């Protein structure tokens, strides 16, 4: 046998070598020396990886609570616990809450609806008092009731991570599967004034939409083949339902669908960032085959201090197409309107941007962009 190569030496040291390799190493001083050297190297490696750090006591507590919670939920163990699961029913598919496609079409841009769908999220009752004992149903119920109440004034800044997988094109027409960072600015003092923007992982602006009733303008921008296209219109005479409003509706619907599950699970997490509540809706099958939108699995994590949602993830089906998305809040601030710079609600203009003007906008910004682009194409062909 020829001398062993590095892979064979490695396998030998790892106890995975062949009998032939072992025999060779036993009779070949060169290979034995290399095996010895590699053994020493692996010993050093193990020492480097054997971090002498104790497991935090809070982690032991977390895992123990997880065990108790899971045992309670499955009925495999009994005992006192801080974790609760609501008794009972199976996922009912929330038929009354399934969105009907023939109603309002999901027509806003990807950014808007991405935010809308997911943001399903944010404002779970800052004023809610922290109870000493809570249940998932209580948290969800109070969350749902608070979702309808937007902040009365001020400008809300949100940043969050968004991960999409299998989201139907009908819902997010300009968002492929992947990860995004989304920034939202909503002016609660001026109804219908907002700016949303989505960025790729490297921080590159992908799309944005902004409208301001004070100026009567709406700007929608999207990046196609490394170039930004900007569509500017005036606002329609009658403002349609705004993106933030859509968000809240979606948020309410999502939370309500979680409420409709009789099988929520609540877990109390003591983290370095403070106490949090985690509510899971385990994987279940919808009982309503005709439902347009079903959530089959989801969880939400709520900060126990002010009850804002810090994480939200669901799996489900929309128009019978499986999808999932997850949302993780990064920052959330509400500031006084007077302190906000005037250009906050402007979509930034990049060099090389192609700007197209489209007159009065419709209630459907994405359709506006499409129509404007077709008109420009027509003009270009006629000019030839």
């Amino acid at each position, binding site marked *: 046998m020829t001398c062993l*190569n590095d892979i064979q030496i490695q396998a030998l040291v790892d106890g995975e070598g062949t009998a032939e390799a072992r025999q060779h190493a036993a009779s070949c001083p060169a290979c034995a020396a290399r095996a010895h050297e590699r053994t020493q190297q692996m010993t050093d*490696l193990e020492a480097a990886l054997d971090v*002498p750090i104790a497991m935090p006591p809070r982690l*032991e507590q*977390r895992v123990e609570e997880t*065990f108790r919670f899971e045992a309670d939920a499955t009925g495999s163990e009994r005992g006192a616990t801080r974790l609760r699961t609501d008794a009972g029913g199976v996922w009912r598919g929330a038929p009354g809450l399934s969105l009907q496609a023939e109603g309002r079409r999901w027509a806003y841009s990807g950014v808007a609806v991405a935010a809308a769908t997911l943001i399903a999220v944010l404002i779970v009752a800052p004023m809610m008092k922290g109870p000493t004992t809570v249940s998932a149903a209580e948290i969800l119920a109070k969350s749902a009731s608070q979702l309808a109440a937007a902040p009365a004034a001020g400008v809300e800044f949100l*940043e969050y991570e968004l991960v999409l997988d299998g989201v139907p094109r009908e819902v997010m027409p300009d968002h492929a599967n992947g990860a995004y960072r989304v920034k939202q600015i909503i002016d609660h003092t001026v109804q219908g004034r907002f700016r949303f923007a989505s960025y790729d992982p490297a921080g590159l602006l992908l799309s944005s939409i902004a409208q301001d009733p004070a100026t009567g303008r709406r700007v929608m921008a999207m990046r196609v083949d490394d170039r930004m296209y900007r569509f500017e219109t005036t606002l329609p005479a009658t403002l349609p339902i705004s993106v933030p409003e859509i968000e809240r509706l979606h948020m309410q619907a999502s939370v309500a669908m979680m409420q409709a599950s009789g099988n929520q699970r609540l877990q109390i997490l003591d983290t*370095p960032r403070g106490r949090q509540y985690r509510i899971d809706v385990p994987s279940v099958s919808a009982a309503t085959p005709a439902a347009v939108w079903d959530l089959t699995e989801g969880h939400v994590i709520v900060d126990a201090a002010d009850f804002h949602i810090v994480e939200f993830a669901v799996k489900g089906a929309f128009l019978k197409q499986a999808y999932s998305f997850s949302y993780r809040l990064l920052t959330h601030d509400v500031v006084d309107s007077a302190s906000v710079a005037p250009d906050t609600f402007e979509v930034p203009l990049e060099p090389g941007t192609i700007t197209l003007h489209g007159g009065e906008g419709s209630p459907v910004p994405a359709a506006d962009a499409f129509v404007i682009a077709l008109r420009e194409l027509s003009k270009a062909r006629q000019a030839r």
Partner: protein
Amino acid sequence: MEARSTAPVAARELFQAHGAAVYRFVLVLLRHPQDAEDCVQETFLKLLRHLDAGGDATNLRGWLFTVAAHAARDRQRRRSRWMPWLPAHDGHAPAPELPDEDGRLKQARDALRQLPERDRLLLALRARGLSYRDIAGAAGIRPASVGRLLARAVDRWGAATGRRKDGNAYDVLERHPNPGAR
């Protein structure tokens, strides 16, 4: 039914036996204590469900590190997706220094951090004594590739520590795969 009633007890015993090791394992991979804790919690929750469902219990130690490796990899990828929007708003704390990081160990661990994610994972799994088959499962690679990839990872780590003993200029990519054919 018996399995359901004993699963929590077995899971607790396994947590007592291996919880600290799993925690250190993911801490080395992630260097982010909060994420490491999340991984451990997720791993042992999956263990409980695995046992509750009557899953294979022949190599639960390997199973634990495999699941923990997957959880760590998911978090690592999720974390690496983003550049900070604004540093002031970025909630991630810098990676903590480990308590025993004297010169030699610090150098060894610094070298580990320079390695690609997969190399770190392979080395960490191997250092925990997992078999090649288990490593393959945890790392999502073919079992037949483990030895080759592991050998290269060790070489890269050795090169990064500057601890090669042959005194020759070191270039992992240029090394002949079978220097012993003589």
